[in-house]
């Protein structure tokens, strides 16, 4: 079986079921708007300090929306007990994992398409290609890690508790580099190109590591 076709088929299956139920994306988009609202009340935002506060609100909202999105990735499979069935097929577990990761990151990107315009609408920060690029590049690596640990905790007690505890510390490299990139894209000091190349390095590192580890997490 061609692993790329398997991954593509799994991703299409997940996206189609999301399209038919429309569960995750609308809920997450609302969640993100709420997070922006809380950011507005939690900080005293005005036009002078918006550029220094908005990146923080962006990453906080994105990180927690990501946790929910990746936590849902394997929830549907668990409820239907269909993950075991998928793993019994001759398709390679890594390809199945890749398909699910691609689908989950596309869902998160759909939420980002709501979040980034809303952020610049509410806080008046620039909505530029630089910001979008930084967030998208960070999403790749964060999705790989998030799905790996989501697959892991899907079969563990207290999974809602464990997923953030395991994922957040390993996401911190992305938040360091991504935070710097977004800050400099919004006009704060710091080198944008340096942060982006660091993000790409982290992407490559974690994509390689997760593809090596996925076999052990899914195989049973």
């Amino acid at each position, binding site marked *: 079986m061609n692993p790329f076709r398997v991954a593509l088929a799994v991703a299409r299956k997940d996206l189609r079921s999301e399209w038919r139920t429309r569960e995750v994306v609308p809920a997450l988009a609302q969640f993100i708007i709420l997070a922006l609202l809380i950011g507005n009340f939690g900080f005293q935002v005005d036009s002078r300090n918006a550029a220094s506060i908005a990146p923080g609100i962006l990453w906080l909202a994105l990180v927690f929306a990501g946790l929910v999105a990746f936590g849902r990735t394997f929830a549907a499979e*668990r*409820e*239907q*007990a269909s993950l*075991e069935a998928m793993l019994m097929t001759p398709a390679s577990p890594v390809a199945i994992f890749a398909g699910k990761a691609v689908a989950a990151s596309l869902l998160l990107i759909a939420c980002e398409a709501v979040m980034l315009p809303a952020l610049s609408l509410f806080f008046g920060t620039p909505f530029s290609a630089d910001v979008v690029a930084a967030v998208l590049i960070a999403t790749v690596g964060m999705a790989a*890690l998030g799905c*790996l640990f989501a697959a*892991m905790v899907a*079969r*563990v*007690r*207290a999974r809602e*508790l*464990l997923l953030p*505890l*395991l994922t*957040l*510390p*390993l996401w*911190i*490299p992305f938040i360091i580099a991504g935070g710097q990139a977004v800050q400099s894209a919004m006009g704060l000091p710091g080198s944008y190109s340096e942060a982006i190349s660091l993000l790409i390095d982290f992407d490559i*590192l974690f994509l390689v*590591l997760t593809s090596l*580890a996925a076999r*052990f*997490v899914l195989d*049973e």
Partner: protein
Amino acid sequence: MLIAGAAIFFYAPTDYLQGPVQRIFYLHVSSAIAAFGCFAVVLVGGVIYLRNESPAADRFARSGALVGVVFTTVTLVMGMLWAKTVWGAFWVWDARLTSTLVLWIIYAGYLLVRRLADPGRQAARFAAVVGIFGFIDVPVVHFSVTWWTTQHPGPVIINDALPPQMLATFLFTMACTVVLAAVMIAIRYRIETLVDEREQVFEPAKVLVAREPEPVQ
């Protein structure tokens, strides 16, 4: 350990600028190095476990994580006490402090996985993956002082920045701390072996066959 303690207080000269507080240095750096060593044990144990499912490798990884978290805690607490007198605050958001805190959180998470996953093969395998990913942070902590400009001082040992008496005291303390960590891992390993024997978690496929599928909700 006692001799090391005596050497720290009586043999090593008092720092000219910082006064007696500087004596924290010996144990602070030693326990950081011991913690790195413990996490290396977790990494190696995890890799070996994933390769051949050896329960002994997993027990070593388990013991290493526990002892490593203890030594990281010692490092953090001692560093905070030192920072309060020298920098004037318990905590500054500096690259090395932050990355050490992240390291502590990662391995505390490792211990939680061990507690929450089904004991036996599942816990061992998941924990091995966490241990391997977590070890990425160790080089980050080590090089953070060189990569970013930080408030935390850079390496003084390999740069020959210490007077010989301090160096001798430090090396002796470090040797003692590493041996202490190794002894603690060995003791913990014995405990884990006894626990495994009692619980029989690594007993063969029986466990797997007997496991019922999760009920459909």
